[in-house]
């Protein structure tokens, strides 16, 4: 009988396997292969063209002794910490406010979220205009009579990152509000009833009951936001092009400059590998906690 024997493995599910070829090629060739390629070539002295001429950790030595890279890292840290703190606090507060069974909830949510639909380029250009010292906020306050008022972040090397944070928050807080709101909506109504019966004030319920319950939402949001922060590029290009001087340089821009402008590929590969490392440090513990324990079979 033909069906007596178990059919050969490769031919079972053949259509599914064929249909998955794009995914497999992307995953293996582009994501895995491309990443490995870059990591390997970061140990070479490739200049204009990639060459397998290994120089050990030279590129990394040079990277970490380049002031421009150090500024990039510092800037990314400033941007990361500030935008994480503020976007979480503001995002959560807005979500909590919207969760009070208010009227016009949809209108408010639409307003808070619309910047997220805009690109970083558009965001950056608008805020560049608002922060323009000759016409923007500074000018207006001065014209109101406060002549000595200075608010000119984009042209001040010490303040420029804060200006970028301002624009980044405007663009991205709506997303966090949305994720938090979804989390809050996922909390059982009965929890609130129980807290009211027990006479716990609202703010205490949030602090001691709701926020601990939202821990998974916080963690996931945190990972998403952090992975996004590392990619920070367009916004800086649009707002300041890295200026004044190199004051608002960020790693992603550093990589681009060295790969496509300065024709120093090895340096670009090393810098991008450092970015990968940063993301790995964020992602791997999270992935381990999130998926590691659940593995079956």
């Amino acid at each position, binding site marked *: *009988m033909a*069906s*007596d*024997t*178990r*059919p050969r493995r490769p031919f*079972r599910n053949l259509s599914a396997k064929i249909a998955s070829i794009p995914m497999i090629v992307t995953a293996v060739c582009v994501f895995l292969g491309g990443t490995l390629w870059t990591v390997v070539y970061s140990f070479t002295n490739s200049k204009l063209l990639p060459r397998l001429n290994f120089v050990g950790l030279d590129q990394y030595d040079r990277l970490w002794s380049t002031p421009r890279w150090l500024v990039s890292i510092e800037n990314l840290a400033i941007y990361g910490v500030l935008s994480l703190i503020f976007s979480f606090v503001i995002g959560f507060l807005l979500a909590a406010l919207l969760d009070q069974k208010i009227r016009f909830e949809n209108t408010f949510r639409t307003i808070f979220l619309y910047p997220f639909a805009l690109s970083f380029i558009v965001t950056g250009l608008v805020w560049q205009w608002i922060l323009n010292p000759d016409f923007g906020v500074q000018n207006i306050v001065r014209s109101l009579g406060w002549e000595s008022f200075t608010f000119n972040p984009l042209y001040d090397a010490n303040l420029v990152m804060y200006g970028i944070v301002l624009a980044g928050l405007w663009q991205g807080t709506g997303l966090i509000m949305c994720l938090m709101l979804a989390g809050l909506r996922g909390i059982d109504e009965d929890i609130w009833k129980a807290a009211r019966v027990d006479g716990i004030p609202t703010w205490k319920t949030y602090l001691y009951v709701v926020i601990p319950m939202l821990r998974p939402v916080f963690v996931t949001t945190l990972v998403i936001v952090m992975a996004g922060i590392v990619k920070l590029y367009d916004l800086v290009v649009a707002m300041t092009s890295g200026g004044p001087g190199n004051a608002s340089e960020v790693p992603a821009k550093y990589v681009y400059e060295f790969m496509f402008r300065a024709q120093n590929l090895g340096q670009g590969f090393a810098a991008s590998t450092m970015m990968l490392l940063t993301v790995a440090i964020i992602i791997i513990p999270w992935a381990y906690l999130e998926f590691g324990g659940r593995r*079956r*079979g």
Partner: protein
Amino acid sequence: MNQMTNPAATSVAVKDLRLAYGSLTILDDLSLDIGEGEFIVLLGPSGCGKSTLLNCIAGLLDITDGQIWIKGRNVTWEEPKDRGIGMVFQSYALYPQMTVRGNLAFGLKNAGLPRGEIDKRIARAAEILQIQPLLDRKPAALSGGQRQRVAIGRALVRDVDVFLFDEPLSNLDAKLRSELRVEIKRLHQQLRNTMIYVTHDQIEALTLADRIAVMRGGIIQQLADPKTIYNKPANLFVAGFIGSPAMTFLKGQIGERDGVRTFEAGGSTIALDQYRGEVPARGTAVILGVRPEHVAAGHVAAGHGAAGHGAAGHGAAGHGATGAGGAAAKVEIDEPMGSDSLLWLRFAGQALSARAPAEHGFKAGDAVSLGFDISKASLFDTETEQRL
């Protein structure tokens, strides 16, 4: 080649079936022969592997080891569509975007049947199930009962020998469930197909089945007709799972009095001379299982406690009561259930339930004397939990 016991009379044969994911074994070395036209129910709590077994038979799961034969043909590695089965699911699984007619026709179109044949089969199935007026509606416009009828129809039009039901009534409310139960039984009597029916509802199992396979942990615990399952459960699990209200279990040991083996627990004794089965040697630790309807509670008469009158006229216990001689208990809770009452008693320090007529007149705290119909009770080995 493996020979079956009697291939001609066997409709579905499962041989040494094993299903494992890595180290996790779902079904272990399971064999089951199902006769032509037989209605077999796979019964068990959730996670016992009954649905998994059905999916293996349907070919929706790749098995690890073993064979599946349908109609004398080894179908172990055949596609579901080629196995000659029709299947009905718990969630109806109707294609939401197609009309009822489209749902019924889908499989036939895939099989490449001519238009006329498809229409003929749909008309016949619609007539049997009385769903003609629904044919041009979408599933969303149907009630739960109608949906399940259509789902049965989808199996029916396939014109197959074996019907597989995967908890088909679980999503329906109690009233519809009993209606459709009767309908499925009627369908079986009319078509005489082999039917394999998975459920966790013992009423469905007892009412529908020719034979019931009670499953737990991927293993068939007992395979027998409903009466045997009910009266002679093979082990503690089957005994506890079947019957509502459930059988109560008393822990104790075998004793002897006046040459008669007795069950002793906490100073009380029950004579076992009427027991249908082998009573083990004196001193053996056993578990006595009695169904509430086989326990009768009576008022404590002065002096000699005698069951059999007063409130205890219920069921077989009236005449079969043999527990005279110290089977005294106390009423703890009275649960009126309409036609009768369930009394929760404390007997020999253990919980025991008894059925009593609705007007039994007992209150919580009353002392009662008990009569046991030992001929319908079961003794289990404490160690192996098997019936003795």
